[in-house]
């Protein structure tokens, strides 16, 4: 997996209407979102021929846009993993909150030796709105992180204990 390019999102106020955010995808498409003050949103795909102009605008209600965001983004990661692993007997997906009293807050993930000690894999770190996917041993844990782990029920329990210290 290549390192993701940071997203350069431009924010433009639309007086009397709301806000527009737009960015360019790696493949050169110009994409945007208009957020009305009512919470309604419009997903925009700009025209290739005239990139000042919107070619397609998809109107989304507040529920629809948060549903779509869930499909695209981080908050549903655990659910997705759970769905994917559902049929594998003996394996569970679990979220572990790292609180500030944990001895590993501020230390690299490698220090936990989670795989060696508990047989459990840390597959992602959720930090606010960002996701560190497949974190390596050098990735630093921070208080408030949520670790998404995959393993046996016993292993997950052992890792929870280990992180609590």
């Amino acid at each position: 997996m290549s390192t993701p390019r940071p997203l350069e999102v431009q924010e433009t106020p639309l007086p009397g209407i709301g806000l527009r955010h737009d960015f360019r995808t790696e493949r050169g498409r110009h994409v945007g979102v208009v957020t009305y003050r009512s919470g309604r949103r419009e997903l925009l795909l700009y025209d290739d021929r005239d990139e000042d102009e919107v070619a397609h605008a998809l109107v989304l209600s507040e529920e629809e846009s948060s549903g779509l965001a869930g499909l695209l983004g981080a908050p549903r990661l655990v659910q997705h993993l759970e769905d994917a692993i559902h049929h594998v007997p003996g394996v569970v997906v679990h979220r572990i909150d790292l609180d500030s009293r944990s001895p590993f807050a501020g230390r690299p993930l490698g220090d936990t030796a989670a795989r060696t000690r508990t047989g459990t894999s840390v597959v992602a770190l959720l930090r606010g709105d960002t996701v560190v996917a497949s974190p390596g041993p050098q990735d630093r844990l921070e208080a408030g992180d949520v670790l998404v782990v995959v393993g046996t029920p016993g292993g997950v329990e052992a890792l929870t204990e280990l992180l609590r210290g």
Partner: protein
Amino acid sequence: MALDHTAVLLLELGALVVGLSLLAGLAARLDLPAVPLYLVAGLALGQGGLVAPTESEAFLATAAEVGVLLLLLSLGLEFSAEELVGTLRRQAPVGGLDLVLNGVPGVVAGLLLGLGPAGALALGGVTYISSSGVVAKALRDLGRLGNRETPAVLGVLVIEDLAMAVYLPVLTVVVTGAGLLAGLGVVAVAVGVVTVVLVVALRHGPRLTRLLPVRPELLTLAVVGLTLLVAGIAEAAQVSAAVGAFLVGVAVSGDVADKVRDLLAPLRDLFAAVFFVWFGIGIDPTSLLPVLAPAAVLAAVTAATKVATGWVAAGREGVGPRGRLRAGTALVPRGEFSIVVAGLAAPALGAAGAVLAALSACYVLLLAVGGPLLMRVSDPVADRLRLGAHRARGVT
């Protein structure tokens, strides 16, 4: 059997409002703004028309006044003080250009047509101000809110609305015949009041807004009552009631502003419709014919000058020629606020006022209908003229 006053009053009002609802439905089906149809309805009634209201006249006159206040209140609610100040900073030069390009033709036409200095000043306002209602709705309908030229278009509209807050008091003073010195004094007061309200709204808007009640019916009563009070005070101080209402709208901020806008929308729709009809009722349809030619010329000239304004405004934001033409045509529609200006000035100007009202009605009919049509043909015209556009690079 003779009907009593109440029965006649209710029958007249009922027939009028039912008629307006049918017209609004027709406008929606034809994809037109409702304002021109309301005007036509007004022309068909009253002086020189088919039937004249009798018992309901006094009520309609008051309702029309309230309609103007609610229009301006909703306008103020559309914008937060931050948006107004931010736009003013970024787009002030375009605002100046807009004023010169679109106000001057109206003033010149007014002088040429013998409307006198006050009538000319009013006509300048009529041709200057685009209809933010018609423009915003058309931009939404055409799916152009996300376009790169749209912030420039909205910016011009915002500055025009702010300019109204200074212009209306000046107009009020000039039409009542006060001298230049009094006029300048009012300009100073108006600018001062607008600045104070903006600063207070920026610093303390949320805190002031928190003083308002939360329950919907209480909120409606509080805001409408407050608006009428402030409008009355503004009128007494010769700052124009409409400006008072606008400033109340600006001062209410945040979520509450959104809520109030939703609550008041039906009230505004009703009373504003009555205002447009009332304006039409005051015009004798036979007086339209002589002003048709000047109105058409004025409409053509000021459509062109608005296109130029939008062209420059969008150019400053780095938009390509095709988008600049879209921005220009988007500013062409004139509507509710041109009628507000004419309605404010006409009653005080006698014979010149009657010409001003007829001319403004003709002018708005042409551009409220023609403007949105121009917006639709902008892209095909740009392609015919082979105007370039920004192309995305390396799209796969």
